[in-house]
Each structure stands twice: as C-alpha cells, then as structure tokens.
C-alpha cells in the first residue's frame, strides 16, 4: 500500500509538533523515521496510524483520503514501543484479538482463528508459547508477539514505534536482522521510528531524518551519510566536526588563511567534515592544532585536536589517524579534509 503524506501540520496546544511535512512512501518500502526526541517522528507515525489527527494537511492510503478515518478503519498494524500486550491474555489470545473483535459478519470461525494464530506464531518463530502470558516472555519474545498480533489483522501497512528501544544490545541486533528478513518475506509497507541511526541506516530502504517538526532529508543510507543536505543531518548522522570559514576567489579561508581547499562561489559558512575524511599532511596550507587526546575506537584511532582561536575557547575537532602511527599528545598536527561540505551561514 502506497502512502502519501501531504503538507501535514500537527499542533498540540498551539505548539507545532509537525510543520508542513510531506512524504511519499512507495508500496513495499521499509522506511525509518530518524531523529532526536522531540523531532516529531512519533507524532508522524501516530498520524499515519490514525491515533492522532492532523491539524492541517492530508494523508492518502493509495488513492483513498484517509485523513479523517478512525484508527479502526485504517487497517494498520501498529507495534507499540512497550508492546502494549494485554497482560491478562495468553499469547494466543493476544494474537487472535484483532480477529475476535470483528463484527460477526466478517469474523472467522473459532477453528479458523486458531489456525491463523498458529500460522502467525510459526512466522514469528514462537510456536509452543501459545499459552504463556506476556510477563512470562523475554523482551524479544514480547516484541515478536506484538508484531504477530499486528499482522493478524492483515494490515495495509505496518507501523513500529521504537521497535527495539526496550531491548538489550545483542537481542536488538538479532531482531533487527530478523525484521529485515520478515519484511522481505511478507513485503508489507513498513514505517518504523527510531532515534538510533545505526538501526535506521542498516535496516531501512530509505531514511527520513527529522528535526524540530520538519523533515531534513529523505534518502538511502548512502545519501544521508555521504551527501547530507543540511548542517543538522551532517552532525546528527555519524561523527563530524565543523569550523567557520570564508570563501574568497575560489579559495577556502580559515581565520583568514588558505587551508588548501577550493570551492566555487564566494560565501561564508561552516565547513563540515568527518573524522575519516581527513589526511595528515606536511604542507603549509592546512589546518593545524594541538593534539589533546588520542583514543582507540573499535578499528580506528581518533585524535582530538584543539585549534587556537585568538584567545577565545579553541575549536575542537576530531580526526582519524593511522592505527599504526599514533600521534603524540601535545604535538602539533597538520591536516586537511579530503571530503567536506560548506553550509552557508
């Protein structure tokens, strides 16, 4: 099911949680809504589900205007952050709930419900746990019961709110892979909310980066990581440092001095670069600063460098240095970004 979100605005007590947000989701896509808390990502998910209604704008499911349809009429599968499993019902009763509450005309017979439940349990690999209660399950198992329960109503789209938020790191990784396989197997249009960029980049076909009620960028993992379109995306995704620069006659100047980079138009702005997109150099036209710390980070070594700022607090940047040749603390390091972007002030 294709979903189109047109110019959505959502206010809570005059506070705009979402401001003119538009997004097209293709059928069968796996989309991540990524952003810090307060960015409006969960609000957007709840609007798609019909758990909240937009102040302005429209939401289309295919060609159908669903903006004012109730959550019951939208047929969406929603997996809640803390699963919201019914604690007084067994796993089987939880999964069968959506079928049991159907009006008698469209309600499948009991034997049919039972079969569907057992098929779904198979699908989420929890066969044999039918008669357990939610509090007898591990976090990962609860998560999968919640997913099976949402799938039981044959939803048109699947929405997940921080699906791995409450799990420990190892289970989180396993479930992440498992969810990707599950999505590829069932082909449901899926939207999930996360604040964990690693999760979003690894799992989603496209990542929607949000901040302060707006969409900053939509794109594949490569797009948002390699070609960030705004200072927010550049600093929110991955590691980065930034310095104030000017561009004059095609040359990038930092504190009035050329640093060996060239750029087209004359401008003043912030130069952004990632620690791994930097080379150490001996040339005179380069950035230079004092190494204040050097730490090992998984397969890399990161040097923290302070660049003097005319008596003000120094600029702090992080630069990747070769593993086999650590830089000395207190020494001067000269370096130059190999990939960078200047955002206008």
């Amino acid at each position, binding site marked *: 099911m294709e979903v189109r979100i047109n110019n959505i605005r959502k206010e809570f007590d005059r506070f705009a949680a979402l401001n003119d947000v538009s997004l097209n989701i293709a059928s069968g896509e796996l989309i991540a809504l990524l952003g810090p808390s307060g960015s409006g990502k969960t609000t957007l998910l709840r609007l798609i589900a019909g758990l909240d209604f937009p102040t302005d704008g429209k939401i289309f499911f295919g060609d159908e205007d669903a903006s004012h349809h109730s959550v019951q009429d939208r047929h969406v599968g929603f997996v809640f952050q803390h699963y919201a499993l019914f*604690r007084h019902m067994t796993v089987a009763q939880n999964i069968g*709930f959506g079928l049991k*509450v159907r009006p008698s005309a469209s309600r499948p017979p009991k034997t049919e419900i039972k079969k569907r439940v057992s098929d779904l349990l198979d699908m989420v690999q929890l066969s044999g746990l039918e008669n357990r209660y939610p509090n007898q399950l591990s976090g990962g198992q609860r998560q999968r019961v919640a997913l099976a*329960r949402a799938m*039981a109503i044959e939803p048109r789209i699947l929405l997940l709110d921080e699906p791995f938020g409450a799990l420990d790191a190892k289970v989180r990784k396993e479930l992440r892979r498992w969810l990707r396989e599950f999505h590829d197997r069932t082909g449901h249009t899926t939207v999930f909310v996360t604040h964990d960029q690693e999760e979003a980049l690894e799992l989603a076909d496209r990542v929607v980066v949000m901040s302060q009620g707006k969409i900053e960028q939509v794109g594949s993992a490569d797009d948002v990581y390699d070609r960030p379109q705004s200072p927010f995306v550049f600093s929110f995704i991955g590691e980065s440092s930034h310095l104030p620069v000017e561009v004059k006659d095609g040359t990038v100047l930092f504190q009035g001095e050329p640093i060996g980079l060239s750029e087209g138009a004359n401008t003043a702005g912030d130069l952004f670069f990632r620690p791994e997109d930097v080379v150490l150099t001996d040339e005179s036209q380069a950035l230079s600063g004092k190494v204040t710390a050097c730490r090992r980070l998984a397969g890399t070594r990161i040097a923290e460098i302070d660049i003097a700022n005319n008596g003000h607090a120094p600029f702090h940047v992080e630069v990747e240095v070769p593993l086999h040749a650590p830089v000395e603390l207190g020494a001067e390091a000269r370096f130059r970004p190999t990939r960078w972007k200047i955002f206008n002030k």
Partner: protein
Amino acid sequence: MSDNRRTFRNPADESLVTKILLVGLTLVFLAFFLFLPLVSVFVEAFREGWVTYEEALVEPDAWAAIQLTLTVAAIAVPLNVIFGVAAAWAIAKFEFKGKAFLITLIDLPFSISPVISGLVYVLLFGSASVLGPWLKTYGIEILFAVPGIVLATVFVTFPFVARELIPLMQDQGTGDEEAALSLGASGWQTFWYVTLPNVKWGLLYGVLLCNARAMGEFGAVSVVSGRIRGLTNTMPLHVEILYNEYNMVAAFAVASLLALLALVTLALKTLLELRFGAGAAGGRH
C-alpha cells in the same frame, strides 16, 4: 584493611531492641483498640446463648433493619461502581480543563462530616425546600424514606471506587486501549476486553470498601432516615436504638452481624492479595 570487622547489616535494618519495641507497640495498640472491642462485641452478643441471639436477629424490627441495609447497599454499591468507573476513566484517559477540581470534588465526601452530608439532603428535599413538596405532589417521598437513605449512602460512599481506580488507570495509561483500537476493536469492546480486566482487582477492592461503608454508615443516614422502626431503620441505627433501650444482647447481636461483615471484607481482601500477590490492590504485573 582494618581489623575491626563488624557483621554486615543492611543499611535499612534496625537493631533487635528497636524491632521488638516497634512490633510490640503495634501489637499492643492493635490488641487494645481493635481486637478487644471486636471480641467484646461477640462476647456480649452471645452472653445469653445462641437462642437469644437468634431471636434478637429474627425479631421483626431487627429483620427489617437487616433487609433495609442490604437493599440500600444493593442500590448504592452498583451506582457507585458505575460512577467510579466512569469518573476514573474520564480522569485517567482524557485531558480536559478542571480535572484537578473534579478530583477534589470526588474527595469531598471524605472531607466533610457525614452528618453534614445528611443535612444537605434535608435542606434539598425537606418540607421547607423547593424540591421536596414538589416531589410530594407526585407521591414521591425522599426524606424519612428509603430514597433519602440511598441518596445519603451514595453520597458518603462515592469516592471509594473512583479513588481506587484513578491512580491505577493513570498508571496504566492509554497504550493498551490504543492497541485494542488499532486492532479494530470498538470503544465498548476495548472497555470490556481490555480496560476492565486491567483494573478488575482494584475495582473489586473498591467495591468491598464501598460495600462495607454503605452497610456501616451511621451519621448521614441517621439525619435523613427519621428512624421509623421497621421502616427506615438501618442496622447501625437499629443498634443505637436497642442500646439506648438498654437491650444489650439484642444491640450486640445486630452489631455482631456488622462486625462479621467487616471481618468477611477483611478476609476477602487478604485472600485477593494472597492469590494475586502484592499487585492485587494495584493489578499490574
């Protein structure tokens, strides 16, 4: 490492003397203020044997008082269950203006004297009021009749169920309800299959307390009932009348029934807590 190793004691633990003192004090207090009076009620009731006890209970006025008390509780408790669930639902699941004020209002019967609660109804429905004579022209008697007693009892007991449910429902939030709705359940189905089961132990506990108070209420009821023997006398009122007539055995016989009710309530509550763990009064996992 120092040598003066002491046996480890939990920081929240107290010395033996303190423990004995605290436990002892509590027990003495309980024995003196609760156990002793309770025992004396039964001792006094059975002073002249089982036959006299039985006769005191089946005596027509006493029997009428028992029936009236049961009737009043049978009306007041369901009314307060409906009101309590509705109020708790509204307060816990919706956001609206004046919520804090509503909670304060619900607590009102706790904070004012029961006698005042009764007087309010006398003012509302008495012969000097507007409502009373008007209703009388239609043949409806409120004061000094069963409706007045029911009204006063409902008023006095109405915080019990709501008070028990509000914190519980607030704590549970609306996640489960949203889940049920997203799975296609109607509002009524959501209430019946999800909300109610989630609060059932809290509700039951509230009903027990509400019932105990409904049967035991004296002050408010005594103002509105008029104490017509065999007609508008509830058990607590009847006990007082018998006592004032120096009919000790009969007074304590009826009183023992009320005491028994308290004991049964207590036993049921303990049973609930035993069976469903510490969460019985709370109902979460």
